[in-house]
């Protein structure tokens, strides 16, 4: 192919793909500012005639989305912080600390990765019911306080920590916890950032489990509230788009700001397989 033609082809295709990727999201934002009923016309409009924030007001005042936004933030935040601590400690231990059964446990956990979480859903529900955690924040946070995937990510990265560093610290008389918090965590900070980001996004976007566990209106997270709103208000396109914007904007912004960490975490998780 002649060079200018090739350049045009490659960039044209990329632009086309970018358009297809971005269009639904842009349209979603555009419709959210349209007047109720405006989107259900032929031909479908691209821009609002007179942009209005009525849908957002309706969303927050009547549908109580603000509370759901808070719930999503609180839950995702709690899960991220707790799981970060537990996964980091365990990941480091699996990488650098010797204990009996380490290799077998590791292999067992790898095997467990293959099992889809849904096999556990119903017994987990019954277990949480007995613990009184159904329909509470705890029902979401407690089972998510550690994850095999998170442990693996940290371990993968922690393997590269030089042993001499740890040995020197031990010889200086530092305790294991001190070594962990003073030396290891700073060294692990890039992967911890990635794990934190991945966990936060995963928890924010989680749908099936919060759908099952959180019954109360006041506790629902954004995806669950949005799904129930969509079944009830199937006809209010503009309202639903506003709800989608509120759900998607935070994670999209987070991703754009911290792309590097997200991609790194993704690759680390894939490569370890």
């Amino acid at each position: 192919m002649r060079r200018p033609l090739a350049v045009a082809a490659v960039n044209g295709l990329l632009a086309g793909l970018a358009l297809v990727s971005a269009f639904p999201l842009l349209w979603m934002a555009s419709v959210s500012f349209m007047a109720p009923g405006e989107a259900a016309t032929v031909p479908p409009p691209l821009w609002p005639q007179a942009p209005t924030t009525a849908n957002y007001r309706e969303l927050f005042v009547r549908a109580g989305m603000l509370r759901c936004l808070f719930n999503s933030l609180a839950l995702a935040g709690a899960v991220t912080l707790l799981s970060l601590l537990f996964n980091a400690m365990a990941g480091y231990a699996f990488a650098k600390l010797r204990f009996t059964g380490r290799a077998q446990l590791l292999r067992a956990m790898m095997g467990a990765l293959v099992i889809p979480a849904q096999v556990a859903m119903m017994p987990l529900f019954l277990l949480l019911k007995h613990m009184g955690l159904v329909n509470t924040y705890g029902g979401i946070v407690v089972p998510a306080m550690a994850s095999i995937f998170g442990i693996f990510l940290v371990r993968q990265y922690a393997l590269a920590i030089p042993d001499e560093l740890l040995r020197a610290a031990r010889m200086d008389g530092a305790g294991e916890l001190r070594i962990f918090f003073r030396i290891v965590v700073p060294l692990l900070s890039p992967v911890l950032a990635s794990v934190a980001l991945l966990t936060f996004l995963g928890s924010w976007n989680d749908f099936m489990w919060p759908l099952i566990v959180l019954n109360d209106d006041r506790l629902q997270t954004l995806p669950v509230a949005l799904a129930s709103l969509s079944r009830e208000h199937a006809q209010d396109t503009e309202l639903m788009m506003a709800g989608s914007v509120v759900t998607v904007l935070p994670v999209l912004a987070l991703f754009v700001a911290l792309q590097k960490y997200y991609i790194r975490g993704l690759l680390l998780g894939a490569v370890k397989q």
Partner: protein
Amino acid sequence: MKPQAAAWLFVAPALLVVGVFFVIPVLAGFALSLTDFDIYALADPANLRFAGLDNYLTLLATPLFWQALGNTLYFVAAGVPLSIGLSLGSALLLHSRLARWPGFYRTVLFAPVVTTLVAVAVVWRYLFQTRYGMVNHVLGQAGVGPVDWLGDPRTAMPAIILLATWKNFGYNMVIFLAALQAIPEDIYQAARLDGASARQQLVRITLPMLKPTLALVGILTMAGYFQLFAEPYVMTQGGPLRSTVSVLYFMYEEGFKWWNFGIASTAAVLLFALMFASTWVIARAARGAGPRARQAGA
């Protein structure tokens, strides 16, 4: 013994959480699948009966389960190659030296991956609307008649496949991109010196070197696609005519709509078996392709 004790201190919390909230429920799930636990049993445990393998036999004799299985396999068989193809294609485009602003494009193409599935399913439900949807509008400009995407049993699953592809292709694209960047430039230079065309370089060098990545991506994508649930839940409620009921949707309805925990657990176990078998097959095929790939790359 102190290092050992410290080590256990570090792993104990995480292992406890995983053990109590994952391992034990999984085992209990297998056990539940052997009973007829339902809403009556929930009210009074005396109504619980041990069913042995009856649930499995019942499920395998239930037409809706086979339909769910078929729908899920259709989704996987059509969706995974489509997604991987698009990911590979866009990775190759991004990796090309001719591409301008690759960083910008990478961000935009990846953005759908991080969006909340429920939110974009709601958006796409409106894009697929028969009369007011953008998809039919664009098709109409090209002269194609309006398609009742979510109302026609023949097009509902393809609509969901399109949504899933749009949402996921960025994920594998990034993995492919990293793998492409890992291929040493010298191999290409040597090939160009030998007079190989761009297409020959692609087929003889790039693709074989990507085989392990392809296997990895295939397994990851397939495992994710088997767990189809949110799209049918939001967009079609399993319809029309149950053409978008997936195995997980079936499990959700049995388990959390009708409270037949026994049957639902059986469905989950069968799904696990299916996923395990498929990933094992792909992994075996990949291992078989390994030595050949290494020879080609050398």
